[in-house]
């Protein structure tokens, strides 16, 4: 496959940045999207150019490090798929592909396609935890959890914090991410003591970071590689309104 890439290049946080066009030839349809970029980067390095910076780690779709907006869709057209698990066979030979970083004020570009997602860390630090005495792990069956609650909590806990929800949201809202964490902990017995404080603290931190508000467009859940449901946002709203009532 031969492809034309239009890639966002930005030398650093203070650089204005621009779209740069590259030709990539002899791409195997079996390559992942990141492997295709690896091929381009190797050539750039051999040519003495600066390789395109992008985040990645496990390349198994479970770490949440990778992510870029491909042809206007976070993680590309393939549903429930991270960029590292997106394969080139989903693109037509000769296609032009536009690649951009997540766009949100709380996610400043570090370089090229790498953004600083520290805002997510600070939201977690504000309340995305439970306080338990440290020590040996308790027996798994010492506190019973209803099957339905366990299922919903697990579904919410699959959030890998990649930030695609923010990138896709027309309002630049981090509601799906924050709601997934609030839902995950709020459904389990261990999460109850801090449930009210958690919702308030995480939402206030989300606002302090500069994310927009949720208008229920559903764009976030449509691009989420883990298919986190809008139900989590409903749960977050209920927890928050109960806490501030």
């Amino acid at each position, binding site marked *: 496959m031969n492809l034309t890439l*239009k890639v*966002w290049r930005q030398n650093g946080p203070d650089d204005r940045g621009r*779209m740069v066009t590259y030709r990539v030839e002899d791409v195997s349809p079996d390559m992942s999207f990141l492997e295709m970029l690896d091929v381009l980067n190797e050539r750039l390095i051999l040519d003495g150019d600066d390789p395109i910076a992008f985040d990645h780690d496990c390349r198994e779709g479970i770490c949440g490090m990778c992510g870029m*907006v491909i*042809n*206007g*869709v976070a993680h590309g057209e393939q549903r429930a798929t991270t960029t590292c698990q997106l394969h080139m066979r989903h693109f037509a030979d000769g296609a032009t592909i*536009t690649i*951009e970083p997540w*766009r*949100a*004020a*709380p996610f400043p570009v570090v370089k090229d396609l790498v953004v600083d997602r520290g805002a997510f860390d*600070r939201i977690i630090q*504000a*309340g995305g935890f439970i306080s338990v005495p440290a020590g040996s792990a308790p027996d798994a069956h010492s506190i019973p959890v209803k099957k339905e609650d366990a299922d919903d909590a697990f579904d919410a806990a699959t959030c890998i914090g990649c930030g695609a929800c923010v990138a*896709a949201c*027309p*309002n*630049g*809202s981090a509601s799906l991410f924050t709601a997934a964490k609030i839902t995950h902990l709020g459904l389990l017995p261990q999460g109850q003591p*801090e449930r*009210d*404080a958690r919702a*308030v*603290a995480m*939402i*206030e*931190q*989300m*606002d*302090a*970071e*500069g*994310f*927009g*508000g*949720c*208008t*229920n*467009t*559903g*764009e976030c*859940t*449509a*691009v989420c590689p883990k298919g986190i*449901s*809008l*139900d989590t*946002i*409903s*749960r*977050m*709203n*209920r*927890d*928050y*309104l109960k*806490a*501030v009532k």
Partner: protein
Amino acid sequence: MTSTIERGAATAAVPRRAPVKKAPTPKAPGGRRRGPAGLLGTTNGRKAVMAVSGAVLVLFLIGHMVGNLKIFLGAGAFNDYAAWLRTVGEPALPGRTLLTVTEVLLVAAVLLHMWSAVALARRASAARPVRYAARPRRRAGGYVARTMRYGGVIILLFVVWHLLDLTFGAVNPKGAAATPYDRMVAGFDPSRWWVTAFYVLAVAMVGLHLRHGLWSAFQTLGLVRGRARRTLSAVAAASAAVLVLGFVAVPVAVMIGVVK
């Protein structure tokens, strides 16, 4: 030696809703510290204000539509209904009690609805200072959700005109002195087709607004999940369609001469 522990104190029931623990003061990225925001200070709180004020407006719209449809029962029934709205509750209550209460509620709801909309729209534009080069492809098919902001402005402009036309009679051919029925028939006269066109456009915008707003309000208040949300979305579509048909029926009937 004199200190005692009251029996059972250690295992006494804790009040079910312990006071909300003060949120650790959130730190802005620059290390700037802020106090707790409170309901009206957070995006989620403002959305709740939008949901509740919107619900007030929807309840009004239902009553308004039912009242409008009385025009099909004839001039007498319509004018009597308009008069009844002014005298309901008399003599126990002073005249115009129902109307005054409704007006106060509506003005408050409209102002709160607009305030939260403007606040959230400003946040949204600040949250994405650099736009995507590739036109963002919408995956959720939420066309109506994207009409909410400009649709709201069109509805606001329409409400101003509508009040000047049929409530105050300022821009109505018959003026404020005429009966409500005469004002309605004169206002949607075929010679004023552009008034009817604007009316139909605004009502269509209200329909789109409700298509998203009706279920969205329940989601924002955390009242629906899963299948209930999908059912509610269908109910919202049906309710919006009924309201649009109910409101469009009257001017169209005047236009084609069914009501004259």
